[in-house]
């Protein structure tokens, strides 16, 4: 058997108290009596009743005020609060509801109605309690998940490359979203004459996206792929596509932009697969820089086993800048509202990148701050990665 319903009765009429107590006790309830608001509140804090019956007209603190005290106390606001009233006007009911009362009971009290309202109050109290518990459980699960995501994000950050200086000064920025996306990137000198840089974005969110992205990173960093392949972007993409036929298992795929720069010939070979174009900004001139979008028409990796991949090449002038990024930087901000570019789109993103690329471009953090300021977005809903290569003006 469930424990008896515990009811607190607050009424300054001790005759009515006695009568109601009797009715409720007959129903098997445990009845606590208080003759005014303050002692009722104290009693509720000590004995935790589930239902409160409170008279409206009382000296000192009236029923509305008592109700307000109950409902604004986090420890007591889950109790089912019934106001006893001889008032029947609409305005009174409105005032009662506004103070947080859950139900009303008209005086003189009809015993059958009293017990029915108490039973209904108990049912609501119990379902509120289970909802409350459910929401506590959910909240805890959510916090655990967020902690795990934060740890996974820390790991991704730990494997990402640090900025490098030299003929191609390269730096990068990674802003993991709360849900953690599947962004990853790398840049390094394969040998004295070949600089490799790439960025990828696995579809979906959470560990399901982060784990594949880390394993692709490891594959490219290990010597699993021979050097001849790493130097040919189209072959890298084709190899990755044969390794990562993930689409069949869990409908996952990834986009990638992969480039190899050769300083001796000032040539960049590149291939992209479903990834947003790389932005190539010409050397700074008094009239500003011009911009070119570098991409190849390939399908994302992991969608079709027999997909073929092509690459292109282009000359890089000294003093050029290259930006590589993931779509989180412009795609998820559509809702951000009006700003100086109107709707925030890919086009407004590229315009902003061009406008921030002075002769001596600012730190990536400043570029990101400018994006946030322009869009009014403080937190991105997807991972955001941004990489910049600055080609030295005077080659050695």
């Amino acid at each position: 058997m469930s424990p008896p319903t515990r009811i607190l009765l607050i009424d300054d009429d001790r005759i009515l108290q006695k009568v109601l107590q009797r009715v409720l006790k007959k129903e098997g309830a445990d009845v606590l009596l208080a003759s005014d608001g303050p002692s009722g509140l104290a009693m509720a804090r000590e004995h935790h009743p589930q239902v409160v019956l409170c008279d409206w007209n009382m000296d000192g603190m009236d029923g509305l005020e008592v109700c307000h005290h109950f409902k604004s106390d986090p420890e007591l606001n889950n109790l089912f609060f019934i106001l006893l009233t001889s008032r029947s006007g609409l305005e009174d009911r409105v005032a009662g509801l506004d103070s947080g009362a859950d139900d009303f009971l008209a005086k003189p009290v009809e015993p059958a109605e009293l017990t029915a309202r108490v039973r209904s109050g108990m049912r609501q109290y119990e379902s509120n309690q289970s909802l409350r518990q459910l929401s506590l459980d959910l909240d805890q699960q959510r916090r655990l998940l967020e902690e795990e995501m934060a740890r996974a994000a820390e790991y991704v950050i730990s494997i990402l490359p640090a900025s490098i200086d030299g003929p191609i000064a390269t730096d990068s920025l990674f802003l993991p979203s709360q849900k953690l996306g599947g962004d990853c990137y790398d840049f390094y000198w394969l040998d004295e004459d070949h600089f490799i840089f790439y960025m990828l974005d696995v579809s979906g969110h959470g560990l399901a996206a982060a784990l594949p992205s880390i394993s692709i990173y490891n594959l490219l960093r290990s010597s699993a792929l021979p050097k001849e392949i790493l130097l040919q972007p189209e072959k890298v993409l084709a190899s990755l596509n044969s390794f990562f036929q993930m689409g069949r298992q869990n409908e996952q795929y990834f986009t990638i932009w992969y480039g190899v720069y050769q300083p001796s010939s000032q040539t960049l070979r590149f291939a992209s697969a479903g990834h947003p174009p790389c932005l190539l900004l010409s050397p700074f001139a008094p009239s500003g820089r011009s911009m070119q979008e570098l991409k190849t028409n390939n399908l994302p990796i992991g969608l079709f086993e027999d997909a073929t991949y092509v690459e292109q090449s282009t000359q890089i002038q000294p003093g050029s800048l290259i930006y590589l990024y993931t779509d989180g930087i412009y795609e998820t901000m559509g809702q951000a509202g009006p700003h100086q570019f109107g709707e925030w789109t890919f086009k407004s993103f590229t315009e902003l990148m061009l406008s921030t690329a002075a002769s001596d471009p600012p730190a990536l953090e400043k570029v990101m701050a400018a994006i946030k300021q322009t869009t009014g977005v403080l937190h991105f809903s997807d991972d955001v990665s941004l990489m910049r290569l600055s080609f030295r003006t005077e080659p050695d």
Partner: protein
Amino acid sequence: MNQEPIDPQAWSELLALGGEDADSMVDELIDMYLEDSTVLLAAIRRDHQSNQPQSLARTAHALRSPSATLGALRLAEHCRRVEEASTREDLPPEAVIEELMEEAHRVTIDLQSRRRQA
């Protein structure tokens, strides 16, 4: 409305609430009521004589609720009239207070006899 100080229907409903040991409950309630009403009636007269409508409204309310519970519906109605008049900050006429007192006297006698019967 009937002329009896204690409404028979209200009284039988009260007895029904008491169940098997209704008598002892009723005895207890009558004792409490007589104890309280003596004090409250004196206060009503005092508040009226000293021209304290606010206090009078509270006292009349305090007598109204238990009177209604015990079935003294006419007395409860007198209380309500005094309470409402006083709440508007008008002191009710002397005659209204006297009517309340007379009715209270009848209720007291009736309840005392019921107490003895029980």
